[in-house]
């Protein structure tokens, strides 16, 4: 069974997912960071595939991605780094990246590597749903790789029902209209949106703007859990990743 499905079967509340870019802050940090996160009890990790033009990301993730690229990170190198990860890493792993890098790598080769390295899902924010369902969904399903889809406060009900049909794994519930790293603002409307998505059959995690224990708990109270990216990267940068994860529980 796909490890993401397993996770949501075993745990429905307070799932903590962490995002960080591969090869950051140092090229060789991908695996040690994964190990640390697992040791600290993190449930799920999204590994960012660094891209030169990350449209949906704010300045912190942009500059982390740039540093990773300057370090020499690439998609192929990431797969090489992950070759033996499954000897010790049992958490579900997701790759998050932009469509250009995957397309250039070759979709078949990409899915093949995902299978080999034990990747459970991908998040490809700029691959349109229609292109995915028409051209790629069957391949992803055959490879057993979940394509995690995003919903946002702007997503209309009509579109939501289309997304729900195509979704697998869980829904990535974007907290607000912002690139990554913005602040999460509480509002009635926002809470209604959270509740609407949480009421769907498919599990969901809230991301964008979650940065500490309080915002994590707030988000997690509406869904199956939440995703922390920018705040974790800042901690990585300062060498305080361990402490940061500790401070969340």
């Amino acid at each position, binding site marked *: 069974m796909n490890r993401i499905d397993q996770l949501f079967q075993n745990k429905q509340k307070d799932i903590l997912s962490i995002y960080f870019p591969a090869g950051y802050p140092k090229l060789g940090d991908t695996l040690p960071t994964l190990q640390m996160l697992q040791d600290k009890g993190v449930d799920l990790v999204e590994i960012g595939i660094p*891209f*030169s*033009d990350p*449209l*949906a990301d*704010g*300045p912190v993730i*942009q*500059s982390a991605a*740039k540093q990773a*690229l300057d370090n020499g990170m*690439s*998609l*192929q190198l990431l797969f090489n780094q992950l070759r033996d990860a499954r000897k010790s890493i049992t958490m579900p792993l997701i790759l998050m990246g*932009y*469509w*250009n*890098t*995957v*397309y*250039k*790598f070759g979709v078949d080769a990409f899915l093949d590597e995902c299978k080999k390295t034990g990747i459970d899902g991908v998040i490809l*924010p*700029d*691959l*349109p749903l*229609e*292109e995915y369902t028409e051209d790629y969904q069957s391949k992803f399903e055959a490879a057993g790789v979940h394509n995690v*889809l*995003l*919903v*946002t406060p*702007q*997503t*209309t009900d009509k*579109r939501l029902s289309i*997304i729900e049909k195509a979704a697998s794994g869980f829904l990535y519930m*974007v907290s607000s*209209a*912002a*690139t990554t790293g*913005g602040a999460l603002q509480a509002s009635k409307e926002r809470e209604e949106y959270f509740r609407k998505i949480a009421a769907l059959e498919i599990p969901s995690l809230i991301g964008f703007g979650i940065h500490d224990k309080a915002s994590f708990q707030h988000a997690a109270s509406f869904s199956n859990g939440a995703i922390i990216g920018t705040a974790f990267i800042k901690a990585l940068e300062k060498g305080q990743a361990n402490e940061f994860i500790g401070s969340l529980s």
Partner: protein
Amino acid sequence: MKIKLCGLKYSKNIKELVQLPLDYAGFIFYPKSPRYVGEEFDPAIPAMFPESTRKVGVFVNEELQSLLEKGEKYQLDVIQLHGGESTEYCRKVKDAGFELVKAFQMNESFQFQSLKEYENVCDFFLFDTKTENYGGSGRKFNWKVLEKYKGTTPFFLSGGIGAQDAEQIKQFTHECLYALDLNSGFELQPAKKNADQLEIFLNKLELESMKKDKFAVDQRGYYGEFGGAYIPELLRKNVDELQENYLKILGSEQFRKDYARLLDNYVGRPTPLTKAGNLSRRYGTNIYLKREDLTHTGAHKINNTIGQILLAKYMGKKRIIAETGAGQHGVATATVCALFDLECVVYMGALDVERQAPNVARMKMLGAKVIPAISGNQTLKDATNEAIRDWIANPESFYLIGSVVGPHPYPDLVTRLQSIISEEIREQLEKETGNPNPDYVIACVGGGSNAAGAFYHYLNERKVKLVAVEASGLGVDSGETAATITIGDIGFIHGSKTMLMQDEDGQITEPYSISAGLDYPGVGPLHAHLAVSGRADFLSATDQEALNAAKVLAESEGIIPALESSHALAVLEKMQFKKDDVVVINLSGRGDKDMETYMKHFA
């Protein structure tokens, strides 16, 4: 129905033919044929056809090794066999990776069972007229015999089809008819085809591929395989809203009136079409300049911003976001925002803020907020990223994009708004020369908006040669270039599937050009399609060639062009024209903003 043109040989002739929608181009490698390509045939000749035209090699009982070698040497996609080749032989050709067509000669007594064993190895059959000499007789066979063909392998209909047969072909139906094979019926002499006669014939067939508006965007925003809307879900609602509204609004009476009035009274249209006498003498032809440099704000960019600001207004938007490279689009946006009293935020690469200082000052004076983009190379690509990020964070704003790039519907929207350029060229040329169609239209390409506008009304006029000029910076192979079509490959940038400069890991490469407006690693999807389909020629000009061309124009015509437009002028040196050719160059902007750069090089 597909079209194959067979028996080709001569490069000069092929030059006339590449503009036709041919699906297959056939070359005969049988020495006894009058259309035999010969021993010394140049592999560059088949390569003149665009990728969308499949190259076919025709062989008769050729030794297998020699056939495979020729297939490799001439980069053939398809092998067509006309002799007594066995299924085993066919299988080997197929295994070598070629598509396979096996020809059979028809007469009243043809035994269709004999095809059975070939069904599984051949991609296609070709039915030709039975002769003594392996076809090529120029005679038709009685197509009625094909009623007896009950197989499933699709076939090419061949044998003596000529210009007079269009009606009969339209009447002829068969489930497996796949393509027409044309050859001697359209020749001036063996292997020399009559392009005009072919074009008329293909028009008569009313093929899908000959339909007007071949270059229009489809329902989902694609030009051929390029375009689409590759955007994060965060932008979906905004883009959907725009997709739903843009055609309705652009087509409305009110919009058309407002747009036309503003173009006349505010932008200063129509812009003149100036016959450049001295330049014409210099290059021995007839050169006309479309004077977008004379518009208000000094470049074609204003045609687009006037249209989009009306659209924004009708959609009830209050805040405008734009990106800019040279600053021309930023100025044009700041201008229309001032006119319509809307808040204006312009992202501009930090490096461009420096090298286009006069335009930064203009934007500020017009009341816009200019935000330097400090990511990446700090040029247009990065400014566009920042503008899109702003739009994600402020979905109630209107993103006023500056070129024929971005997610659908922007490429189509901006193309339509810039199409006023070729609309005017047609009228002006008609008045001046009696013919609305020139022989050439030449324009520079950054994202491609001025070129799209200058090409638009000629896209389906195949006789008008379209020439797009990219900036090659220090040279296409220097690593310091912005010649996207020349060195790029397929990728995704700013929401669009297009041609793109990228490294082997799919990281987008930093472009370079002396001209800030051409310094972009992608190109609009329409242009990617024009390039791949062969409809437009993509040339390039270096920094130095552009500078030289600017000097020539200044001194010979008294016009200082924008550095971007100078790239279009620069290819005059590299092209060959006939004395009575009519050549239109789109002078996209004036050089005021570039004076510092010009002075550095000429002072």
